[in-house]
């Protein structure tokens, strides 16, 4: 008895935090997932039954779901690629000493501090030809034929929230990559210069490999966040016109809070969760393989 208690002792010490974390993280997750297997429609007193996999069968036949999934991929990939690319360029620029660098660094961080809903509204107005200048500029540059609202064009509307999100998310990459760049010792570059490496070779063979761990973790985090991030789309287009900007996250929002079908929304959410888990596992496996080979 005494031996068992002694063996259990450390677990008692850990218990409060374990229970707290469990209650906060796992209970809602499990309850949320369980909705996916129930018929839960707000304002319908007869709902609440267990329906098994029925939501998933509906989902499989739901063209809107597949459309949203395709849009999610386009949305996530273009946002991550553009945010990362531009963020890296910005970080490289900010890594060189120049007058007023601190002030500029602060300004670069600014979009990140703007609430997402506000920036969504802001960009929606910028694209609106009634109040915003962008349609006129774009048509003057010949990008658009007439100064129309980009957000009302079903073929290109998704680019509106993508542009807003790129603007909003660049600081994240710029700041994290800048921190990583600044941790690379200067004399590595001097040694590479003496070894005969030009600027591009230094970037490819010193900077990139040393940034790789930071890149892997930030890209993974950002991908998950962006795929899960309906704010800008909900504010700017509500998924329209004609579902052309609907991504899974905004589809979940629409299903839950406009059609009030929490059961179906939870089923979509479960699928999104599964896809992101698979993505994260794949990325970790890839990183592991690369680390082993390197």
């Amino acid at each position, binding site marked *: 008895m005494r031996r068992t208690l002694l063996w259990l002792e450390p677990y008692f010490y850990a218990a409060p935090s374990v229970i707290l974390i469990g209650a906060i993280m796992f209970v809602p997750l499990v309850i949320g997932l369980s909705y996916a297997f129930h018929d839960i429609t707000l304002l319908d007193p007869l709902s609440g039954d267990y329906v098994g996999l029925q939501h998933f069968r509906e989902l499989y036949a739901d063209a809107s779901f597949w459309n949203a999934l395709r849009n999610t991929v386009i949305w996530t990939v273009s946002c991550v690629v553009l945010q990362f690319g531009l963020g890296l360029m910005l970080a490289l620029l900010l890594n060189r000493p120049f007058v007023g660098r601190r002030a500029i660094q602060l300004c670069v961080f600014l979009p990140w501090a703007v609430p997402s809903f506000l920036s969504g509204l802001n960009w929606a107005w910028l694209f609106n030809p009634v109040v915003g200048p962008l349609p006129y500029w774009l048509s003057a540059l010949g990008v658009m034929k007439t100064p129309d609202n980009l957000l009302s064009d079903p073929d290109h509307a998704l680019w509106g929230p993508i542009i807003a999100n790129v603007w909003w998310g660049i600081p994240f990459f710029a700041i994290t990559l800048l921190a990583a760049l600044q941790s690379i010792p200067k*004399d*590595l570059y001097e*040694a590479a210069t003496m070894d005969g490496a*030009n600027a591009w070779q230094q970037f490819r063979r010193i900077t990139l490999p*040393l940034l790789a761990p930071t890149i892997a973790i930030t890209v993974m985090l950002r991908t998950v966040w962006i795929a899960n991030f309906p704010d800008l789309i909900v504010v700017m287009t509500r998924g329209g016109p004609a579902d052309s900007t609907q991504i899974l996250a905004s589809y979940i929002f629409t299903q839950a809070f406009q059609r009030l079908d929490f059961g179906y929304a939870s089923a979509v959410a479960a699928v999104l969760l599964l896809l992101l888990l698979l993505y994260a596992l794949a990325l970790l496996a890839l990183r592991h393989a690369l680390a082993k080979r390197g």
Partner: protein
Amino acid sequence: MAAISIKGVCKKYGTVSVLRGIDLEVRDGEFIVLVGPSGCGKSTLLRLIAGLEEITTGEIRVDNRVINELAPKERDLAMVFQSYALYPHMTVRENLRFGLSLRGIPRERMEMLVQGVSEKLGLTGLLERKPRQLSGGQRQRVAMGRAIVREPKAFLFDEPLSNLDARLREQMRYEIRRLYLELRTTSIYVTHDQVEAMTMADRIVVMNDGIAQQVGPPQELYDDPANLFVAGFIGAPAMNLLEATLREDSGAPGDVTVMIGSEALAAVQRPSSMPVTGRVIAGIRPERMSFGADANGIPAEVDLVEATGIGMIMHIKAGGQLLKIYTTDRIKFRSGDRLAMHIDPLDLLLFDVDSGKRLRPLSQGAAHP
């Protein structure tokens, strides 16, 4: 291998002058050590030669070709950094190969060179390791290897041993010197450690305040310093520098007596330029002084005795000033004991109080004692 010629080189950062006119001829195959306190400009000079900084005015030539405007990689010099600056994400082999591959050397020749260098430096068993898996001494060797493998015109060393502990530093000092004697590649070596400078150099350049104070072989700098700075900087324990006056009433004509306080230190030949005030700084090496308990000598009192194992440093008071005597004799003096010092007049060096310049005897001119 190459001769390096430095003419009137100045370096300014904004309005701050770091180097103020350096002239130096490094002969082909020579091992030159730049030594001086921190901030004296020695590392800056090295970086100017390497091409990591721009020359403000003046000219540097390698093999008679002006390299001021050449990019570092076109200068074909190799540098060993204080922090080693090994590429942390590459193995030892990749570190050694990096410079070669950038120069487009064929793979087989590259492997051969890497193999040769790693055998020479005892790195063969470490080739597949990453720098973080190596000890300080091993990293140092890899840094050396990376420089050697390219067979550059000259090696530039920037305080390569200062990150090592004392014992390892002694060993690496020996290894670098031995390697140099084998390769005979022109080397410029920066250090703040005068022992390193003395032991490794063919010629030493003592630097202070952006100026080369004196250039010469180690023993010459030790025996015949050109000014107070060099006298005080070279040698450990440091030279005794005493405030002294010259008195003209000594026996032999052309001689003056060096006095500290009221004690006569020695009669020496009259310097070629006699200071008006008669005040000078008199320098004498701690190990060039003898002493005894007898009465005929300069009276002094023992202040403190430090045993270093190999010998003793005796701090003594004479003529109201503190000075050190170094001896390898097993002495029995203790604090408060009285003794008598003896000085050979030839060991006494005189310096001008204001300019710090060496005051040489009339007959000697500007050459050796």
